[in-house]
C-alpha cells in the first residue's frame, strides 16, 4: 500500500514538473525573413553598367513562367519602379506572382551584350526568401532591348536564371517568357496599407516608416495609406496601433500609447523594429513627394481631435508636388462619424480632398473626392457608377485574399483597392486582358 502511494506521488510530481516545464519553456515560434546577401561578382564588376530607360520600359510585361512554375506560379508580371535621393535615382525590377503572395525585387544592369538582374524573392504568406539572378542574353531579347526602338512580341524576351533559399548560392532554374504588355487600359490605384506593408509580414523595412514609403512601389503600390497619430504635444506621426508594443517597435521600456508622450520623448526613446525613428507626417509626405513614384496618399487619422495639423500638411505637400510637376493626390481618410465631424470643422474642408468610408450621403456632405466602402459590401456596381458619374472615385478596402482580389480586379469598377498585399493586387491588375 505504501509503495503504491509513493508510486502515485511520483507520477503526480512528474506531471506537475512537465506542466511547469511547458509553462517555463513556452512555445513561441519566431519567424524572420531577412533579405539575403545578394553580392554577385559579375553584377558588381565595372563591366556591368546601368540600364537605359528604353530597356526598362520595353521589358515590362506579362510573362509565362516556363521553368519554376511550381514555386512561383504559371504567370508573372514584371514592372519597374524607382526611388530618388539627392544625388541619385535607383531603379528596381519587381516581379509580381499570384502564388503564395510571392514577389521579386531586382536591380538590373547591362553586361556585355546581355541584361543581368540581381536580387531576391520573397513569399509573404510565410518566411521563405532567397537570392534570384536572371539574364536576358543577346539571343533572347537583349539585342532588341538595347536598341533604340525595340519591337517586342510574344516570346521575344526570355529571362533565364536561378533562385535559391536564404543566402545559399541560387541553383534552381527559373525562366520567364514575354507574353504581352502590362494592362494599362483602365488605371487602378493600388494602395498599400501601413504605408506599403505590415511589419507582421516580416518585410525588409518597418511599416509606417520612411523606409517602407520608399519600398512601397517595389511591392506594387501606386499609393499608400499612412496611419497617423498625434503626440502629446500635437505632432502628427506615423504609427498604427493603439499602444507601443513589441510587434512594431524595439524594446525600450515604455508602455502606453503614442498620445502619452511628446515628440521629443518618442524621437529619443522609440525605434521601429528595423531601427528607424517613428517618422513625422511631415517627413513622410516629404519622402513621398521628393523620393518616390507614389501618386496617391491616404492619411488615415487614428486619433480623436482636430484635423487642423493634418490639413495644413496636406495643403503644403499638394502645393509642393505641383511645384515640381508631380500629379499626387493626398486625401484625408474619414472612417467614422467623429472623423467626419472633425473634417467638417475645418474652415476649408470644401477644398480639402478626402476619402470617406461611410455612406454616399456622407460622401456628399463632406464633398469627398473618394468613396471607400469595405469589400464585404460587394462590388456595388450601381453605387460605384453613381460616384464616378459625380466626378468622384471609388476605392474598396481591405482586400488581401487573392481570390477576392481577383474577383474585384476583374469584376468590379472600383478605381482603387487598399490592401496589405499590394503585390497580389498588382499581379491581378497587370495581367488583365
Amino acid at each position: 500500500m505504501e509503495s503504491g502511494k509513493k508510486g502515485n506521488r511520483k507520477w503526480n510530481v512528474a506531471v506537475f514538473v512537465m506542466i511547469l516545464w511547458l509553462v517555463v519553456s513556452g512555445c513561441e515560434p519566431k519567424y524572420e525573413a531577412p533579405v539575403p546577401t545578394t553580392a554577385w561578382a559579375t553584377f558588381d564588376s565595372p563591366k556591368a553598367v546601368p540600364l537605359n530607360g528604353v530597356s526598362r520600359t520595353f521589358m515590362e510585361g506579362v510573362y509565362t513562367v516556363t521553368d519554376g512554375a511550381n514555386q512561383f506560379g504559371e504567370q508573372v508580371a514584371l514592372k519597374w519602379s524607382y526611388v530618388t535621393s539627392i544625388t541619385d535615382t535607383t531603379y528596381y525590377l519587381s516581379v509580381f506572382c499570384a502564388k503564395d503572395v510571392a514577389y521579386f525585387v531586382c536591380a538590373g544592369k547591362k553586361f556585355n551584350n546581355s541584361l543581368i538582374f540581381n536580387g531576391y524573392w520573397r513569399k509573404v504568406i510565410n518566411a521563405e526568401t532567397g537570392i534570384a539572378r536572371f539574364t536576358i542574353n543577346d539571343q533572347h531579347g537583349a539585342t532588341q532591348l538595347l536598341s533604340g526602338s525595340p519591337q517586342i512580341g510574344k516570346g521575344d524576351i526570355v529571362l533565364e536564371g536561378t533562385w535559391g533559399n536564404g543566402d545559399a548560392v541560387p541553383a534552381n532554374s527559373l525562366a520567364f517568357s514575354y507574353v504581352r504588355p502590362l494592362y494599362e487600359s483602365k488605371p487602378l490605384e493600388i494602395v498599400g496599407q501601413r504605408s506599403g506593408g505590415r511589419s507582421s509580414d516580416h518585410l525588409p523595412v518597418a511599416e509606417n516608416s520612411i523606409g517602407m514609403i520608399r519600398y512601397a512601389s517595389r511591392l506594387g503600390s501606386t499609393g499608400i495609406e499612412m496611419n497617423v497619430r498625434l503626440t502629446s504635444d500635437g505632432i502628427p506621426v506615423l504609427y498604427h496601433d493603439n499602444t507601443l508594443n513589441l510587434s512594431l517597435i524595439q524594446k525600450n521600456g515604455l508602455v502606453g500609447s503614442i498620445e502619452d508622450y511628446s515628440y521629443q520623448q518618442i524621437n529619443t526613446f522609440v525605434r521601429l523594429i528595423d531601427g528607424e525613428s517613428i517618422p513625422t507626417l511631415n517627413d513622410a509626405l516629404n519622402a513621398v513627394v521628393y523620393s518616390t513614384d507614389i501618386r496617391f496618399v491616404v492619411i488615415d487619422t487614428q486619433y480623436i481631435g482636430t484635423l487642423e495639423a493634418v490639413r495644413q500638411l496636406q495643403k503644403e505637400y499638394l502645393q509642393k508636388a505641383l511645384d515640381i510637376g508631380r500629379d499626387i493626390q493626398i486625401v484625408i481618410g474619414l472612417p467614422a462619424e467623429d472623423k467626419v465631424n472633425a473634417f467638417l470643422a475645418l474652415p476649408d474642408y470644401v477644398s480639402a480632398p478626402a476619402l470617406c468610408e461611410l455612406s454616399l450621403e456622407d460622401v456628399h456632405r463632406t464633398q469627398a473626392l473618394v468613396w471607400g466602402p469595405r469589400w464585404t459590401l460587394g462590388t456595388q456596381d450601381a453605387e460605384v457608377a453613381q460616384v464616378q458619374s459625380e466626378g468622384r472615385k471609388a476605392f474598396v478596402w481591405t482586400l488581401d485574399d487573392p481570390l477576392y482580389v481577383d474577383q474585384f480586379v476583374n469584376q468590379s469598377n472600383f478605381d482603387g483597392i487598399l490592401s496589405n498585399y499590394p503585390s497580389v493586387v498588382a499581379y491581378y491588375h497587370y495581367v488583365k486582358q
Partner: protein
Amino acid sequence: MGFSSGWAMAQTETPSPDSTSRGTYALVAYIGGGMSRFVGTAGSPQGFNTSINRNSPSGTFRLMWHPDHLLRVGVESGWTGFYKYKVQGGTYTAKLNHTATPILLVFSMPVTKRLSLFAGTGTYLVTSYLDYVGKVQRSAFSLGFMASAMYVVPLSERVSLAGEFKWINARETKDTNLSLQLMVIWSLYQW
C-alpha cells in the same frame, strides 16, 4: 491540527483512495520579499550613453488553498522591478524605470517534505516611468507566467519560513527576471 502538519499534509495525511473522509483544508498566506535580477534583454535607446540597472527589490503576496491532496491552488500579486536605465545626453539626463505587479493564478505541489514547486499564469500590470523633458507614468497589461521552487522550514504549528527562487516572465513585453525571496508562510484558517 497544526500548520506544520498542514504543510506536510500531502506527505503524511493524504486519505487512502477508499476512504470517504477528507483530511484538513487550509487557507495559507505567503508574504515575502527579496532581490530580483532582470535576465531578459533590457531595451534602451541606441546610440546614447546608457547605464542600465538590472537589480531591483521584489515582493510577493500569495494566498493558497492547501487541500488534503497534492495539488494546491491560489492567487498571487506583489511587485517587482524589471530594470531601470539612465541616458546621459549632452545637456540632459533621462531616466526610465520599468516595473510590474503580477496578478496570477498559481498552482503548487510539494515535491518533498520541505520542497515545493509553484507555477502560475495570468497577467502583469507593467508600468513605465519616464523622466525626460517631462514625467510620464503609464501602465499596460502583459500576459505572462511564473515558476518557482520553495524550501520551507516550519517554525511553529502555523508559521513557517521559506526561501523561494522564482522566475517570472511577462510575455508580451518580453520581460523576465529571477528573484530570491525570503517568505513567511502563515496558515490563516483551517477546516
